[in-house]
């Protein structure tokens, strides 16, 4: 990276970009024809084309949400977005076959190294499509399907058709409609009955081009008694113009299955990150969202779980860091639809340098869902006077047998903590870094160790050069 480029990137260490070597790039802007062209290019079955078109029409007709950060939402210019960009003609199984500049990017992000050390499979998506994909042979032999979504649709059309859009319908919200219309890439995973995938599988999403829209679509099905841990990472270059990331993720945990979905999104501060993530947990199944939001300009994301079968369990642990010019509007939603279902929600947010973080939570217990238990804990840490934190909890409790706990706290770093740490040799920035890492610790300890270390470093960097 040139000196000049580095200047522009500033503190964000993944802000570099490569030359844009597209093999196919659609003109900016969205129309029904663009939607049809994407589908035709991918040679999709008719039902998918129809679904895309239907979703597009819904998107067009649907108003913007009238809640959240309306000003920022209204400032999105959908006509200035590139909806499809292919940067490599095929998805490779060997890193050496991936185009050099793209491979270099993923090298810098440490993906091939992580794959060798501790992952069961990797998908690397660059712009609209996966450029690299691999899964360990032993998992493949056990019948585990781990593909990019486009390939999944080609090779397992029946399975995709059966589940696609069943958890997050296209009409769920404006951005799920947009995703359904123009989706490209993402992961498709099926874990057969009784199979436990011991090593996490990872997908890494990278936006490189300016004004890019990335719309990956992920569908994970864990069949009865199986388990899987899926890890997602995201970065983008720092440009002065905006990019749009609008994903849809659907998780289906069959009876007794367990899915954990861990994300650390570290988009650059010019990315709108408007994502719908939802899972269904059938009888005695568990769905866990471990969701970290560090980057982006505006994130609106509320990982949710439908507890559909008796004894199902939901776990949502999320953290948000909102710095200068950032609004993290995050939270969690849990719907107790069946009796004796349980949930834990832990949300932690930090606001700094004028950043804003909001917790938006929904806890619903249906009238016939007897004997449910839920615990919600929301902690906010505000690091200076110019920053802001809001909490919008909603509870709809349909019967009196529910056992619910709700705790919320807003705190500031105390002068005593800083003095104590500084008397132990830490600079003020280092002291802040320690306090912030400590605050997020209940989240970081849930991450694979390599991620936890990386996240701690990242937060320490965020604390640097910002105390005057």
């Amino acid at each position, binding site marked *: 990276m040139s000196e000049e480029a580095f200047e522009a990137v500033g503190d964000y260490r993944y802000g570099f970009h490569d030359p844009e070597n597209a093999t196919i790039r659609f003109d900016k802007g969205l129309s029904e024809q663009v939607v049809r062209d994407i589908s035709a290019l991918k040679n999709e079955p008719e039902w998918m084309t129809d679904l895309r078109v239907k979703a597009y029409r819904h998107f067009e007709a649907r108003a913007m949400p009238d809640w959240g950060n309306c000003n920022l939402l209204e400032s999105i210019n959908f006509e200035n977005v590139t909806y499809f960009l292919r940067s490599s003609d095929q998805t490779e199984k060997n890193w050496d076959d991936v185009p050099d500049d793209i491979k270099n990017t993923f090298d810098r992000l440490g993906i091939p190294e992580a794959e060798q050390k501790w992952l069961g499979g990797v998908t690397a998506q660059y712009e609209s499509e996966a450029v690299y994909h691999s899964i360990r042979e032993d998992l493949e032999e056990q019948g585990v399907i781990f593909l990019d979504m486009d390939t999944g649709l080609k090779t397992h059309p029946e399975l995709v058709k059966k589940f696609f859009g069943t958890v997050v319908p296209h009409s769920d919200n404006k951005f799920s409609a947009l995703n359904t219309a123009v989706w490209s890439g993402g992961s498709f995973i099926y874990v057969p009955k009784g199979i436990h995938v011991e090593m996490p599988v990872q997908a890494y999403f990278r936006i490189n081009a300016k004004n890019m829209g990335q719309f990956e679509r992920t569908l994970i099905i864990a069949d009865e008694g199986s388990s899987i841990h899926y890890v997602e990472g995201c970065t983008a270059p720092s440009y002065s113009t905006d990019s749009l990331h609008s994903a849809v993720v659907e998780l289906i945990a069959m009876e007794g299955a367990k899915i954990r979905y861990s994300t650390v999104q570290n988009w650059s501060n010019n990315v709108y990150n408007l994502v719908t993530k939802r899972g269904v947990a059938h009888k005695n199944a568990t769905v866990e969202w471990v969701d970290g939001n560090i980057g982006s300009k505006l994130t609106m994301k509320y990982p949710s779980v439908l507890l559909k079968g008796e004894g199902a369990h939901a776990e949502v642990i999320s953290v948000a860091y909102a710095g200068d010019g950032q609004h993290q509007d995050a939270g969690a939603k849990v719907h107790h639809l069946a009796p004796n279902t349980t949930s834990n929600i832990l949300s932690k947010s930090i606001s700094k340098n004028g950043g804003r973080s909001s917790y938006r939570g929904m806890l619903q217990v249906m009238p016939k869902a007897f004997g449910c238990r839920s615990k919600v804990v929301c902690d906010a840490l505000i690091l200076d006077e110019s920053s802001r934190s809001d909490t919008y909890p909603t509870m709809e409790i349909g019967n009196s047998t529910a056992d619910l706990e709700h705790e919320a706290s807003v705190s500031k770093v105390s002068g*005593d*903590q800083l003095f104590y740490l*500084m*008397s132990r040799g*830490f*600079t003020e920035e*280092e002291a802040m870094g*320690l306090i912030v890492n*400590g605050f*997020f610790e209940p989240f970081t300890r849930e991450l694979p160790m390599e991620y936890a270390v990386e996240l701690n470093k990242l937060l320490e960097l965020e604390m640097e050069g910002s105390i005057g």
Partner: protein
Amino acid sequence: MGVAMSEEMLRVENLHVSVEGTSIIKGLNLTIHRGEIHVIMGRNGAGKSTLANVVMGHPAYEITQGTIHFQGQPLEELAVFERARAGMFLSFQYPAVIPGVQVGTFLKKSVASVRDDPPKGRAFRKELNGAMAELEMDKSFLSRYVNDGFSGGEKKRLEILQMLLLKPNLALLDETDSGLDIDALRIVSKGINKIAPEAGCLIITHYQRLLDHVKPHFVHAMIDGAIVKTGGPELALELEERGYDWLDVAA
């Protein structure tokens, strides 16, 4: 050859300190050399803790007059963390809680920032284990969060553990003995005696009982922001027996 002049660690001259406009320390003088143990006793509100905090650089205190030197260097230029790195240590009366930060990580990072040639990896663990054994601390301490849910005695032990690992040239101990049972007091004293020969020590206390375990060279009585009487260990006994009123008159 006689006793060599030992190195000066702390020199406080005509110190005046105020907090939010209220004058707390009023013309205090004190010099501590390497190898010396000084004890300051006095009533609540005499300014004892203020002295310890101001020497360490607490931002809430304003020095309105006078100077403080550490190893001959004026302290006013040094930030709190620089004082720590220069070899100053304060054992807090009320150590802060740092949620989510494990004691082990904290100690390692602190040692790395303070000591000139910090032990790493196995050498650090060996030193840590040795110090913890000496203070009769269980290894489970290391995975707990700094002072989070600690009893009073546990907090003080962690302070002393840090002192042993940071190897300060000047140790300020602010009521480290308060609220300790006999066993804890014995253990804390062991820690102080261990570093004392190589450092200057300033112990702030209300009680003579610590002095059953730690032998001070000087005992100072502090009243209303100044040292009004200095003596040997016998002064501590006298203060405990007679209180401070007789000194008010003397002052």
